C-alpha cells in the first residue's frame, strides 16, 4: 500500500494530537472530573488510532486503541482518574512518540510492542470492571461492530445516492460510452467517510485503490484533484466501469477503515443504452444532440460550480487559514529573494556612481520603487518563516511535572509570550538550550521543600519562562525563585579548578564571576544526577545560542533566585547593517546592535587601567580600535576626531573606532565556509552591490 505521500501529514498531525493529549492530560491531573477534557482526550486518542490504522502502523494502532478503551470507561464513569493512571497515560504518550520517531526515521513504526503498557492499560479496565477484563475489552470493541451492523439495517435510506445526480462532462461521457461498448457495466457509487475521520483524502485514495483492482474509475465527483486536496465534506461519488458485481466493489470500498457507508447501483444512461442498440448512422445525431445537451448543461454547471467553488474557497479559510510548506521550499524562496536584493544593491550602486549615463530621473525613481518592492518582499518571506515558539515550549509543562516527581520538589512552571514568533530555523534549535536552562532551574535553582519552608518561602517553587520581542531581538527569560547562585562558591571553585588565579578573582566583578559558569566543564552540582550536572551544561547552552547569533546572560540574587536572559535575532539570513571602512577594508556591523554614532575629539579619550575609554553622557565607554581587531597597523597620523560607533549588548556599551562610515544597507549573510577557522570576530561575509566582499563583524564577541 503506497501511503508514503501521506507520511508527512501523518507525522505533523500525530505531533499535534500528541501535544493536545499531553496538554489535556496535564489539565486532567488538575481537574480529574472535567468531562470536556476527558472527551477531548478520547477524541484525540480515537483520531490517533484511526490515523495509525490507515497508515498500517498496527502496533501504534493497538496501543492507541487500548488507550481509547480506558477513556471509554472513564467517560462512562466506570473508572475514576487517579495519579497512577495519569502516569500511565504519559507513558503511553512517550511510547507513541517513540513510534513516531521510528516513523520519521525509517517510515516504519519499529518492532516495540509496548506490551507492558498495554497490559497496564487493560489492568485498569479490568480493575474497574471488578475482574472481568474480557467483558470490558469486548465492550468497546463490539461497539464499532454494532455501529457497522446498524448502518446497513438503517438501509441506504440514510445515505443519499448522490451519484445519481452526478453529471459527467463530454470527455467522461465518451469514456462511459466506450466502456459500455466494450461490454462493461457502469456502476455509480457514493462513498461516505466518517465525519471525524482525519486524512479524508488518504481514505479516498485507498478506496480508489481498492476499487481500481476490480474496474476502471471513469468519473469522479468532486474532481479527483479536489478529492486529493480534501475539498469534500464527507462523501464523494464515482462511476466505475467493470465486469465485476456491484456488491463486490461496495465490499472492497468498505474494507477501507473509517468508511462509514458505500451505496451504489447500475447507471442507466440513455445515450449509453441506446447507442449499441441502434444503427451507427442514426446514433450520430442523437449522440450529438445528447452531447450538445450535455454541453449546454456543462456550460451552465461550471458557472454554478465556479460560484460554489468560490464560496467554498472563501468559507474554508475561516476554519483553516494555514498551509504546511516544506522548509526547503521556503529556503529556496529566501535564496531567490537574497539574489534579488544583491541585484538590487548593484543597481543602486551603479545609479549612485553617477557615471552620467544613469542620471535619468525616472531611472532613479524606478530604482527606489525596486528597493521598496524587494524590502517588502523580503519582509513577507521573513514573516512566512516566522513561527511561534509555542511549538517548542509547549512540551515544557510536562517536563517540569516529571522533574517535580523525580526530584521530589514541588514546583510550578509559569509561561508567558508563547505566541512570540521567531524564524523557523531558530525555533527548531532553541528547544535544547531552553530545556537545559529549565532543568537547571529545577535541579540546582530551586531548594528542596523543607529548605523552602524553613526560609519562609512558599513551598511550591516557581519556574518561569517569559518570551517577548524587543526591537529586532526576541528575549526569552528563564528563571526561578530559588536560592540563586552563590558567587563566593563559584569563585572558590574556579580557583580550585585553576580556571582563574586568586589575584584575578579579586579584580573580577560579581557578574564576571557568574559568567564563569558558562565555561566548558564547569559544573557546580555537588552530586551528579541524571538531570543535570555532568559538566556539559551551560557552556553548551551558550555555544548553541551563539551559533544562532544570539547571546545569553545571567542575573542572580543570592536567596532570591536566578534569571537567564536569552537574546535571539529575529531573522538570520538578511539584516540591516551599517557599513564602515578601515583603510580600504569594508566591514558590516548589524544595525540592531548599534545604539548611536559619535564624533569624538581625540583629546577626550581617557585612560582606565591603561585602556582607552570615553566619557559620554555620564557613562564610561571602553574604546575598541577596529584597526587593531582586524590586525591593520595604526594610522601614521592620528586624526583630530574619531568616528566612534557605539554598540550595545545588554547593558554593556563599547565604542568601535572606524575610519569612515559608508551608510546603511540591507545585507545578505553568507557563511565563510568550512575551510577557514572561524575566528569568531567575523560572523560571516556579504556581497556588496559592486560584487566586492565585505566581512560582517560580530560585536558581541568584541565586547
Amino acid at each position: 500500500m503506497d501511503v508514503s505521500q501521506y507520511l508527512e501529514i501523518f507525522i505533523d498531525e500525530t505531533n499535534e494530537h500528541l501535544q493536545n493529549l499531553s496538554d489535556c492530560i496535564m489539565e486532567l491531573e488538575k481537574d480529574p472530573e472535567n468531562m470536556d477534557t476527558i472527551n477531548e482526550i478520547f477524541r484525540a486518542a480515537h483520531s490517533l488510532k484511526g490515523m495509525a490504522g490507515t497508515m498500517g502502523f498496527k502496533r501504534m494502532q493497538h496501543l492507541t486503541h487500548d488507550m481509547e478503551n480506558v477513556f471509554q470507561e472513564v467517560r462512562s464513569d466506570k473508572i475514576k482518574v487517579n495519579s497512577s493512571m495519569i502516569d500511565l497515560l504519559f507513558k503511553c504518550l512517550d511510547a507513541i512518540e517513540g513510534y513516531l520517531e521510528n516513523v520519521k526515521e525509517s517510515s516504519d513504526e519499529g518492532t516495540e510492542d509496548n506490551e507492558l503498557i498495554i497490559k497496564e492499560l487493560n489492568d485498569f479496565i479490568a480493575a474497574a470492571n471488578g475482574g472481568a477484563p474480557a467483558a470490558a475489552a469486548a465492550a468497546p470493541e463490539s461497539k464499532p461492530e454494532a455501529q457497522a451492523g446498524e448502518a446497513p439495517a438503517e438501509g441506504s435510506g440514510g445515505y443519499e445516492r448522490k451519484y445519481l445526480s452526478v453529471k459527467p462532462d463530454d470527455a467522461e461521457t465518451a469514456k462511459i460510452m466506450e466502456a459500455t461498448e466494450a461490454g462493461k457495466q457502469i456502476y455509480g457509487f457514493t462513498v461516505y467517510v466518517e465525519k471525524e475521520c482525519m486524512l479524508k483524502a488518504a481514505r479516498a485514495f485507498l478506496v480508489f485503490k481498492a476499487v481500481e483492482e476490480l474496474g476502471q474509475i471513469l468519473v469522479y465527483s468532486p474532481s479527483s484533484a479536489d478529492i486529493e486536496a480534501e475539498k469534500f465534506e464527507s462523501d464523494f461519488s464515482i462511476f466505475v466501469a467493470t465486469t465485476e458485481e456491484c456488491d463486490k466493489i461496495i465490499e472492497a470500498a468498505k474494507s477501507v477503515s473509517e468508511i462509514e457507508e458505500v451505496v451504489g447501483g447500475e447507471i442507466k444512461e440513455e445515450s449509453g443504452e441506446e447507442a449499441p442498440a441502434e444503427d451507427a448512422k442514426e446514433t450520430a445525431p442523437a449522440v450529438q444532440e445528447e452531447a450538445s445537451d450535455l454541453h449546454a448543461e456543462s456550460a451552465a454547471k461550471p458557472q454554478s460550480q465556479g460560484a460554489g467553488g468560490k464560496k467554498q474557497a472563501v468559507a474554508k479559510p475561516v476554519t483553516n487559514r494555514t498551509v504546511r510548506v516544506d522548509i526547503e521550499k521556503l529556503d529556496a524562496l529566501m535564496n531567490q529573494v537574497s539574489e534579488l536584493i544583491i541585484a538590487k544593491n548593484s543597481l543602486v550602486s551603479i545609479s549612485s556612481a553617477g557615471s552620467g549615463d544613469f542620471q535619468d530621473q525616472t531611472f532613479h525613481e524606478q530604482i527606489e520603487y525596486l528597493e521598496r518592492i524587494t524590502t517588502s518582499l523580503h519582509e513577507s518571506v521573513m514573516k512566512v518563516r516566522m513561527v511561534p515558539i509555542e511549538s517548542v515550549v509547549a512540551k515544557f509543562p510536562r517536563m517540569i511535572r516529571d522533574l517535580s516527581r523525580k526530584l521530589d520538589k514541588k514546583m510550578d512552571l509559569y509561561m508567558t509570550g508563547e505566541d512570540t514568533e521567531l524564524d523557523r530555523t531558530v525555533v527548531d534549535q532553541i528547544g535544547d538550550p531552553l530545556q537545559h536552562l529549565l532543568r537547571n532551574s529545577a535541579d540546582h535553582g530551586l531548594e528542596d521543600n523543607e529548605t523552602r519552608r524553613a526560609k519562609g518561602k512558599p513551598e511550591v517553587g516557581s519556574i518561569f519562562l517569559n518570551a517577548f520581542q524587543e526591537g529586532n531581538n526576541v528575549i526569552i527569560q528563564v528563571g526561578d525563585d530559588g536560592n540563586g547562585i552563590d558567587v563566593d562558591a563559584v569563585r572558590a571553585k574556579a580557583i580550585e579548578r585553576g580556571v582563574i588565579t586568586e589575584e584575578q578573582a579579586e579584580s573580577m566583578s560579581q557578574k564576571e564571576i557568574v559568567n564563569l559558569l558558562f565555561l566548558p566543564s564547569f559544573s557546580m552540582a555537588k552530586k551528579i544526577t541524571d538531570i543535570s550536572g555532568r559538566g556539559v551544561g551551560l557552556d553548551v547552552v551558550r555555544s548553541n545560542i551563539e551559533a544562532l547569533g544570539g547571546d545569553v546572560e545571567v542575573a542572580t540574587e543570592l536567596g532570591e533566585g536566578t534569571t537567564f536572559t536569552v537574546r535571539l535575532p529575529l531573522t538570520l539570513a538578511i539584516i540591516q547593517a551599517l557599513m564602515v571602512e578601515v583603510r580600504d577594508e569594508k566591514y558590516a556591523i548589524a544595525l540592531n546592535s548599534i545604539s548611536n554614532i559619535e564624533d569624538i575629539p581625540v583629546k577626550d579619550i581617557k585612560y582606565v587601567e591603561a585602556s582607552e575609554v570615553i566619557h559620554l553622557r555620564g557613562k564610561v565607554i571602553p574604546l575598541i580600535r577596529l584597526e587593531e581587531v582586524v590586525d591593520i597597523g595604526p594610522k601614521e597620523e592620528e586624526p583630530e576626531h574619531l568616528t566612534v560607533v557605539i554598540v550595545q549588548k545588554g547593558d554593556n556599551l563599547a565604542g568601535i573606532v572606524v575610519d569612515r562610515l559608508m551608510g546603511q544597507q540591507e545585507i545578505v549573510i553568507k557563511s565563510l565556509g568550512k575551510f577557514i577557522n572561524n575566528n569568531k570576530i567575523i560572523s560571516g561575509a556579504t556581497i556588496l552591490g559592486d560584487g566586492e566582499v565585505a566581512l560582517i563583524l560580530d560585536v558581541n564577541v568584541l565586547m
Partner: protein
Amino acid sequence: MANKALEVIEKQSKQYIVVMVGNEQYGIDISYIDNIVRMQKITRVPRIQPYFNGIINLRGEIVSVMSIRKKMGLEEDVFTHSSRIIILKIEEKGALGIIVDEVREVVNLSEDEIEKVSNKGRFINGIGTHGDELISLLEINAIVDEGQ
C-alpha cells in the same frame, strides 16, 4: 577488439590538470576541479590560518582561497596575469580555491606512467611522466587537511 583495448586504457588512465607552482609542475586530479577562474580581488579575513589569503565572490557564493605555496612552506605568491584560482569541490566541506602561477594543459596519465611515492613529502602521492616532463601529483586531502 580495438574498442575493447581502448576501454582498458580509459579505465586505467586518469586526467590531470597540469599547473605551475614556483618552478615545479603539479598535476591535479580533474575530478576534484569545479572551475578555474582568473585572479581577482581576494578579501582578506583577519585572524585566520596564515596559509589562507581570504575569500572571493564566485558568482554570488563565498569561496575561501588558500595559498598553496604558503601551505607547502614555499615563498610568498607573486600574482601575474597568468595566475589562476583553481576551485576545488571537496565533499562535505564545499568549494575551496587554490592559487597557482599558471595553468598549462590537461594530460592523460595511465597507471604505468605514474610512480607511487610515499616519502616524497606529504602533499604528493605520485610522480607522473608525460613525455620528458615530470609532474608531481597533488594529494588533495593533504592540502585540505588542517595544520602545516
